[in-house]
């Protein structure tokens, strides 16, 4: 799977624009600089369905700093801040 789909480079979801669609590659809680500990942030993201292989799409973004973002994860829509979304590496 890695070789065929890896034509796009990996990037954090926190940098993606509205309309972006992709698949989660892995979680990198260390990169996010969130107020939560790495383990806590990673657990929460997984609990909201952000796991490897899930399809994501950025549906909406806020006004100030285009933050937060509303992300479609499979069948749910989740609002997160870009800071936390930096931990979600997509391609």
């Amino acid at each position, binding site marked *: 799977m890695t070789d065929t789909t890896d034509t796009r480079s990996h990037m954090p979801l926190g940098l993606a624009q509205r309309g972006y669609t992709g698949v989660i590659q892995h979680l990198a809680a260390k990169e996010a*600089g*969130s*107020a*939560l500990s790495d*383990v806590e*942030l*990673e*657990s*929460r993201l*997984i*609990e*909201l*369905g952000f*796991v*490897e*292989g899930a399809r994501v799409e950025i*549906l*909406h*973004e*806020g*006004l*100030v*700093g*285009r*933050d*937060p973002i*509303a992300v*479609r994860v*499979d*069948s*749910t*829509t*989740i*609002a*997160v*801040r870009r*800071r*936390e979304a930096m931990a979600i590496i997509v391609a």
Partner: protein
Amino acid sequence: MEAPLLHLALVGTPNSGKTSLFNALTGSRQKVANYPGVTVERKEGFFVTPLGRQVSVVDLPGTYSLRGRSPDEEITRDFVLGKASGETLPDLVLCVADSTNLRLTIRLLLELKRTGRPMILVLNMFDIASRRGITVDVKRLAKELGVPVVTSIAVRKGGTADLLKLTDEISAALAAEPVENSWRALGVSELRATQREADRIIADCVSLPARPDTWTARIDAIVLHPVGGLIVLALILFVMFQAVFAWAQPAMELLKSGFDSLGELVQATLPDGLLQSFLQNGVISGVGSVIVFLPQIILIFLFILLLEDFGYMARAAFLMDRIMGGAGLHGRAFIPLLSSFACAIPGIMATRVIDNKRDRLTTILIAPLMTCSARIPVYTLIISAFIPARDVWGFINLQGLVMFGLYAAGIISALLVSFVIKFFMLRDFVPAPFMLELPDYKMPRLKSIVIGIYTRAKMFLQRAGTTIFSMMVLIWFLASFPQPPAGATGPAIEFSLAAMIGKALEPLLAPVGFNWQIAVALIPGMAAREVAVAALGTVYAIEGGSEAVEQIGQVLATKWSLATALSMLAWYIFAPQCASTLAVIRRETGSWAWMGATFAYMLVLAYAASLVTYNVAVALGAG
């Protein structure tokens, strides 16, 4: 021998319909709304199954895991794990899932299985799933998960029949011996593995149509538009406060004239004397002057209930997140704050969903600044007496505009206070994260709106009949005794206890333009804000004597200067005039100190705001 009481618990992800199910099973009227985190307490109810088994069922706050990250999730965790003191473990756990969105619940269910409690998976909202073309292989799902699975439609009559039948079957076969609890907090890799397992099971048993809810997508394109969304939000709030003022008028006039004729009837039929005075001044002018505001209160609740049921609250939180963040608040805090427009008490309770302790505390401290419905009578009374009812720019009612201004003043001061708190508490540099599920929109259900309004209206009338009535008896007594000595001139009330108390306090309040009648009204107004209106009604009615059957509003217009009226409005934006709110702050923060701090800061702000307002108004010639 009668079978022992069967203990059920409703567990599931937020907004999956647990409380709807609870209401359907027990016939209760617990609060249901379309956003995650509505239920923040455990509630027990009872029912009897078709086969006659007595059942106790407990509704719990929604949670994504048993880790207990915030106070509401801890309640669920402690109940399921039997940590709560004096609680029996549930005999059967009903794991409630939103059928349109199974991933997170199935993962939770895999975690719950480790507690060893017998369990059923309830696929709720099955009506929506069917409408969207989602099909579930229930038998296979049950086999894969190793727990019985049943579908339900909590909001439809008979929608829980299958669940009841299954409960009977299972309860008959429940093993009595305790089962091993092998639950412990899941590590990251286990979490990931359970989510993978859940996704695999779903892929095998559920077929999803590719398209999401198109209505939700269409509405969100406008409502969550970066600029358009904020305009819509401002428009909703503006219409709400205009409506509270303009639309409720006809019904209020009707109630007013009803109480007027009642007062005249009492005056005409009863002989002059204490009984006549008590009924006319104490009950009708006092309590009646508060009940008149029922239409406005119903209207504000109607607006909030519609927004909640439609699914707008989570969107408002999304739109406000960064703006609130600037003031050191959490986007999540917007939902409790918006609920505080109805009443600060549920608003303060709703802060339990905020996991960060300081964010939660800040939200609790500022919630009482949001204009609750109990301020409506005070604001309306003064606005209608002093602000002309003309239109500005052709379509906006000036009185409604002032009302909107008062609401805005409450919101802005709440943000400012939060900013100051953030500054002094040296809060974490990095803001706590905001993560919130945005549920699909749902058509508000007429029945739940009607029930919601009925419960609130009943509460309001009950308060009028108890708290407000007893305060009025007290005020009437204080304002009527001692009676003036024979041959005294001037209004009788000048000789009463109320006048003595009011005049003793007057020097303190004179700088903000309050007379002794206001001073008297503010004291019972500590019990509840509306009482001040009733107290003014009684005091001025007694002062006016039996021949003056005038509306309290007209009396104020002649007795107060505009500066005093504005000062009173400023006072009510801030003043901590509600004993129950203070009690809830004490309970939710677990500290007398925070309650005292809230009381003190609000009182200081109220005095300062009134002082400035009064003196500026006098300087501008409104004295």
